[in-house]
């Protein structure tokens, strides 16, 4: 094959798209063969769910074949050498911009892919949030029909939950964990690349739900509502099942990388705290995400193969879905919290010029959160009519998480105490975590209190609570990580003055948007409604106007990123934060093999002036 043909037909996004469409058509044809148009419900509704689901499934297979994800395993299975553009070094020989649009098993490429991908999905999910807030300007429905409104709510929730779980692990853990543990690559580079492209396929499938009539189930997709709806719900279910696959692969690779790829000097007790947060999160992902995938496959079977896993009175139970979903869903919210804590505790020493205070306490806190997070899921069912005998246990387990969470807090404030705090942009975002997560955490205790939860459950109070813990905590540290690490990843730096404007605008607008929602919830406004009593209009309008400012602050960031990184191309200093962490010992951006020669691994958090007696 000549080079020109290779370039066009050689396993890139074009071939992937062509084979994906081919797979989709094949799936529809096979589905129509199994469930012919004469079949009762197909004839009645004009919809063939089996065909659509098979179309998505084979479409994803085709997408991966087109990307060339199967080249390596097939070549090796047949005893051949690894095929191009792969190599045993994890694709390190691959250069140029094109590798970012390919299946490239290289942790730094995948990290960049995730960073841009997460940014794009975050943008679309954010646009949906603006639509929701606009619809809530008026107490009655205006420009969105109830179906459009619920679809927008579902898209916002699904995209945020599906994407933000990987918001730190995808870009920053994939990119920096090998650098922080002195490794040249990750343990399973192909799984790593898979996890990103599965997420892309999933998001495209979710997008198709808009053309298929939308979905009315929200991101939680409770059965039997999700069994009832039409085509759009198949798209939502396939999306979320694939997100589960992506998270599992992401978690597997990162867990294995931290366990097996550490440089000899990097013992468990010398692991940077960010890596601890990654390995606890990754291990939880491996345990929790498959449960989500299985639950959604069961719903798909109920919809296509006439099973009745979730149909009460036909041998199934709607509680089964709620339990499976939240068995994933509650660890999920800690999957969103832990990486933020890791970034916080990793950056505080740099910007206070002090060692991390209570390193082992912080590690215990993270491990404690990870373990306890699997024991709390039924607090989502406090009013569902679950067995009332077990509710006291879930009150205890849920409130008990405040202890390991408190350990993270005490390490943060211990590090700040008498430190020489420098209020750089990443530091500001970290400090905001302390305030926002404090409110998110305290209101979490209100929700864990089952009696008080009777009023709060399913209301705007819950909505405000988890936006404080996810947006207020995770997204703020996500931006801290962007400002802190993008100079390392790109060799270019973001404008710090614009960064400060972005921070203050975002911090104030965020609080102004979500604080009124606690009040709205306590006053009796349930989630996911397009209609509300007129007396709630002032608070809702306040929240909407604040949300616009919040959106504006994020646009400002986008302008900053595009201007600084692509137009002005401001070169970054070698070590702009005077960090003593391992990743700053190598060039920016790091060379293909991460470190020229063996990295010098010194003391962890080597900051601060030793007490008088210890000075030489």
């Amino acid at each position, binding site marked *: 094959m000549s080079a020109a043909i290779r370039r066009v037909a050689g396993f890139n996004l074009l071939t992937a798209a062509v084979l994906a469409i081919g797979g989709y058509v094949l799936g529809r044809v096979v589905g129509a063969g199994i469930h012919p148009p004469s079949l009762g419900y197909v004839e009645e509704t004009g919809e063939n769910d089996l065909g659509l689901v098979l179309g998505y499934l084979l479409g994803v297979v085709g997408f991966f074949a087109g990307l060339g994800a199967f080249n390596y395993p097939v070549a090796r299975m047949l005893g051949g050498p690894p095929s191009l553009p792969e190599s045993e070094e994890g694709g390190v020989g691959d250069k140029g911009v094109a590798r970012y649009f390919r299946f490239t098993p290289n942790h730094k490429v995948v990290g960049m892919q995730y960073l841009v991908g997460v940014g794009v999905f975050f943008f679309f999910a954010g646009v949906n949030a603006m639509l929701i807030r606009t619809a809530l300007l008026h107490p009655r429905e205006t420009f969105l029909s109830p179906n459009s409104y619920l679809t927008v709510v579902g898209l916002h929730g699904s995209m945020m939950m599906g994407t933000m779980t990987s918001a730190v692990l995808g870009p920053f853990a994939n990119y920096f964990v090998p650098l922080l543990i002195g490794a040249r690559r990750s343990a399973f580079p192909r799984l790593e690349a898979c996890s990103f492209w599965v997420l892309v396929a999933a998001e495209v499938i979710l997008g198709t739900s808009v053309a298929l009539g939308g979905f009315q189930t929200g991101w939680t997709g409770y059965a039997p509502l999700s069994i009832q709806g039409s085509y759009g719900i198949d798209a939502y279910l396939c999306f979320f099942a694939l997100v589960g696959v992506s998270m599992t692969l992401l978690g597997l690779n990162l867990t294995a990388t931290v366990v097996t790829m550490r440089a000899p000097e990097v013992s468990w007790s010398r692991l940077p705290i960010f890596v601890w947060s990654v390995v606890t999160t990754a291990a939880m992902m491996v345990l929790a995400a498959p449960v989500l995938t299985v639950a959604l496959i069961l719903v798909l079977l109920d919809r296509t193969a006439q099973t009745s896993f979730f149909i009460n009175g036909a041998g199934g139970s709607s509680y089964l879905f709620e339990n499976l979903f939240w068995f994933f869903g509650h660890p999920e919210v800690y999957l969103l919290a832990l990486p933020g804590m890791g970034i916080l505790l990793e950056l505080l020493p740099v910007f206070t010029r002090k060692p991390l205070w209570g390193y082992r306490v912080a590690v215990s806190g993270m491990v404690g959160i990870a373990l306890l997070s699997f024991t709390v899921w039924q607090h989502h069912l406090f009013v569902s009519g679950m067995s009332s005998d077990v509710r006291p246990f879930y009150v205890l387990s849920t409130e008990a998480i405040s202890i390991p969470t408190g350990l993270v807090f005490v390490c943060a404030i211990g590090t700040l105490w008498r430190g020489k705090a420098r209020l750089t942009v990443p530091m500001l975002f970290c400090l905001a975590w302390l305030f926002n997560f404090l409110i998110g955490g305290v209101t979490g205790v209100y929700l864990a209190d089952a009696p008080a*939860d009777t009023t709060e*459950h399913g209301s705007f109070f819950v909505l405000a609570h988890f936006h404080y813990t996810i947006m207020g905590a995770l997204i703020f540290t996500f931006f801290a990580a962007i400002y802190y690490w993008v100079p390392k990843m790109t060799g270019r730096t973001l404008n710090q003055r614009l960064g400060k404007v972005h921070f203050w605008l975002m911090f104030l607008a965020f609080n102004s948007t979500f604080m009124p929602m606690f009040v709205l919830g306590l006053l009796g406004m349930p989630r996911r409604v397009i209609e509300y009593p007129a007396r709630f209009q002032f608070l809702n309008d306040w929240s909407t106007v604040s949300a616009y400012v919040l959106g504006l602050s994020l646009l400002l960031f986008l302008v900053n990123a595009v201007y600084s990184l692509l137009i002005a191309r401001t070169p970054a200093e070698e070590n702009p934060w005077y960090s003593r962490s391992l990743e700053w010992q190598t060039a920016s951006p790091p060379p293909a093999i991460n470190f020229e020669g063996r990295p010098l691994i010194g003391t962890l958090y080597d900051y601060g002036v030793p007490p008088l007696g210890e000075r030489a």
Partner: protein
Amino acid sequence: VRGASAELRRFLLIWLGLSAVCTPLVAIFAGSIVPPGDQGDAASGQVLDLTVGSTVATPVFLLIVTFLAYTLVRFRQKESEIAEGPRVYGHRGLQMTWILASAAILVGLVAFDVVRLVLPGAAGSGQGPTPLSPLGAGPSGAPVLPVQVIGQQWQFTYRYPTYGGVETPRLVLPVDRTVEFHVTSLDVIHAFWAYGLGVKADANPGVDNIAYVIPRRMGTFAIRCAELCGLWHGYMFDTGRVVTPTSFATWIAGEQRLFAPIKRDLPPYSRTYLPQPRRRAG
């Protein structure tokens, strides 16, 4: 330059001072402004729970906020400077104190919450088909009034089994008499939220979810569906009324007369009504 322990003492004094002022204020005044009010005994109970929670949360909240303010005022340096802080890796005593203090708060709070949860009525929450904490007769001494709440896309209807199983689209309750809600659904999961009474219980198809309340004050209360149930979820709301026992007797007799013609088309009263399972395929 102050010594480390003098600095800590000063911060603790500021925090304790602020807490000593704010915590009693919250304890005293939160109850009068915190929803959901006093129309039902469950609602009043939740006001107490929220007040206790807020009282405990106040010093915790103040600790972090005061700390942030204190730190940033006392210890910051300019961005252009790069002085090193003290090399301190931890403090065993402070860490242990923190752990013990948070454990003590946890034990106290969980004990309070669990006691409140297992008290008769279980704070108005849905307790499933076999309630752990049933509620006896209310202050009026009248026997418990069972009321069935049936959720369906997209409205609630109500059946009064002790009044011939009459089904009506209106919820009217007598004051000071214990009400035993039996919440169920005909299709998907809904949630019955009688806001002013402080009652919330999911309506699951094929499940009888029981919740208790004693309405204590006459007037109307908002009813909303609190679980996403499909297209018109936002419009699944209603207004209930608490009236005198005499008005209730008159009202229910009127409803029985009004709905007598459709009564023969209704299924007999039952704890659940399982419809034919809705199937998509085949």
